[in-house]
């Protein structure tokens, strides 16, 4: 027993001290006018976190003395942390509510919300009334809305999610009247459920659905009221259901934070936004609320 203790301690110390860092070191030839330094902490939505991590990496290459730490925990946590100062910037996958008006919103992208069914489902599209009747359990079978005879397995989102709120608002549904068979939290959960159940219907982020369809997952995005659901139609404004992806700050954010936010809103990161299957916004930045 005693023989192992020194071994464990030594290896622990070594691991702590060595920190073999191979973090990207850019040239010392000062890129960018001013070299920002210090540390920025962002917390919040796990939907936006992967995108922000990539944007942050690019930003860090321009400012080698700056470190940006991205943490998750959900939109609610991001907003709460920003308010009390634990985070410099909060990531929110929805717009701020009236009781959150002490904070400032900076939109960086948009994300459509579309209906999905299994690939093999022959239904061509749904109207708003049909969607409402499915989710309120008035229509129980696909043949009632123009499809083949099969039970409908209704997949719904958990309360508080932005996709749910966009969905409810679009169809003016009261959540207490919705009858679901499965309730999910993350978009991927909904997608995997629909992919594994031939008669299922659900609604997810259009970007995530497109990414998975591209990767061969057996689902389809359904046109709503005749309008196709795709990042293109969301971008052009044709498709009605979408939610904003925002960075949130408190009243007087540090200059580093504002620089980073401006970078996130610049056209220089549109490729990153697209490769994460979101929709870049082309109007001018800083929608202060």
């Amino acid at each position: 027993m005693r023989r192992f203790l020194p071994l464990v301690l030594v290896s622990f110390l070594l691991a702590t001290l060595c920190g073999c860092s191979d973090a990207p070191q850019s040239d010392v030839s000062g890129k960018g006018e001013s070299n920002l330094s210090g540390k920025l902490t962002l917390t919040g939505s796990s939907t936006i976190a992967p995108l922000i991590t990539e944007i942050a990496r690019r930003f860090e290459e321009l400012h080698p003395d700056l470190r940006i730490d991205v943490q998750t925990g959900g939109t609610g946590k991001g907003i709460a942390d920003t308010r009390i100062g634990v985070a410099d910037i909060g990531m929110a996958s929805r717009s701020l509510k009236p009781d959150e008006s002490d904070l400032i919103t900076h939109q960086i992208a948009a994300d459509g919300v579309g209906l999905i069914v299994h690939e093999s489902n022959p239904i061509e599209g749904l109207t708003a009334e049909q969607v409402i009747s499915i989710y309120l359990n008035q229509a129980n079978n696909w043949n009632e809305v123009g499809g083949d005879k099969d039970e409908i397995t209704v997949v719904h989102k958990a309360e508080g999610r932005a996709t749910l709120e966009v969905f409810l608002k679009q169809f003016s549904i009261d959540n207490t009247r919705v009858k679901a068979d499965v309730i999910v939290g993350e978009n991927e959960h909904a997608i995997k459920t629909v992919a594994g159940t031939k008669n299922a219907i659900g609604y997810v982020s259009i970007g995530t659905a497109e990414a998975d369809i591209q990767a061969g997952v057996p689902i389809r995005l359904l046109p709503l009221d005749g309008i196709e659901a795709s990042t293109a139609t969301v971008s052009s404004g044709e498709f009605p259901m979408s939610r904003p992806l925002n960075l949130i700050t408190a009243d007087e954010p540090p200059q580093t934070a504002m620089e980073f936010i401006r970078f996130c809103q610049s056209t220089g990161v549109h490729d990153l936004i697209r490769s994460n299957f979101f929709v870049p916004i082309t109007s001018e930045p800083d929608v202060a609320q």
Partner: protein
Amino acid sequence: MTNTSSIKTGSPRSSGHRTREYAAGIFIWFAASVVMAILAWIVVDITVRGLSQISLSYLINNVADAGRSGGIGPVILSTILILLVTLATAVPLSMASAIALTEQVGHDSLLARYIRLSLDVLSGVPSIVFGLFGNVFFTITLGLGYSILSGGLTLGCMVLPILIRTTEQAINSVPVEHRHAAAALGLSRSTTLFRVVLPAAAPALAAGIVISMGRALAETAALIFTAGYVARTPESVFDSGRSLSVHIYDLAMNVPGGGPRAYAAACVLVGMLLVINGATALLLKVAGFRIAPHFGARR
């Protein structure tokens, strides 16, 4: 390594007994096969979906494109550091606590019962509550911030119940003759403990530690709020760093198109588990202990 396959048991004396023997044998073999088959199923599922993505560069390189390309080098390092912190906090604390419960405090005293009760309740705390608690206590109150240290300390708390209980069980399973012999030789309490009892209990102790490490490796929710999400190479235990399980979760459930990489990371995790198992067995062998608990617990 003896087990009772070496003891000649009697043969059934009546047809009733014979059926019982037969039925019991079938049930036991069936149960054991179910356990082994299910694990094989899961491991095969992971491997088929993920093994093709693994290469040496994958194991060393930095994370890129939210994990969809590049490697998982920093993630592996963070995971190892988190495990080390967990071990460093939980093993001494649990061993001392278990010794207290078995040797110091009366076995059925009010104090011992209270301690066991609180440990049992502790093991029922949901992992997400551990994460939130760790977030408030370690990162904010103790000021450690999102760091590997916070994560390791939180996990240390999480594995305390199972580690203390298995250590307690291991110590109690040492035959009382050992202690009598030590007392007859005039050894002090602490010498008996460290030179006689603990070595005899070593294989069972090791089994408990391995299970706890497995549990720590498997934990996700608690780490998201403490060790954090950062995929950069950590420079010390005070840096935030995501563990392998957090990485798997992110790729599987958050990052669009991250599925195959999630399975690849899961393969690496299974690999790490195998390494830990193997290393523990090797260490035990090298130190001269038996590798598995067996009857009599004699060296």
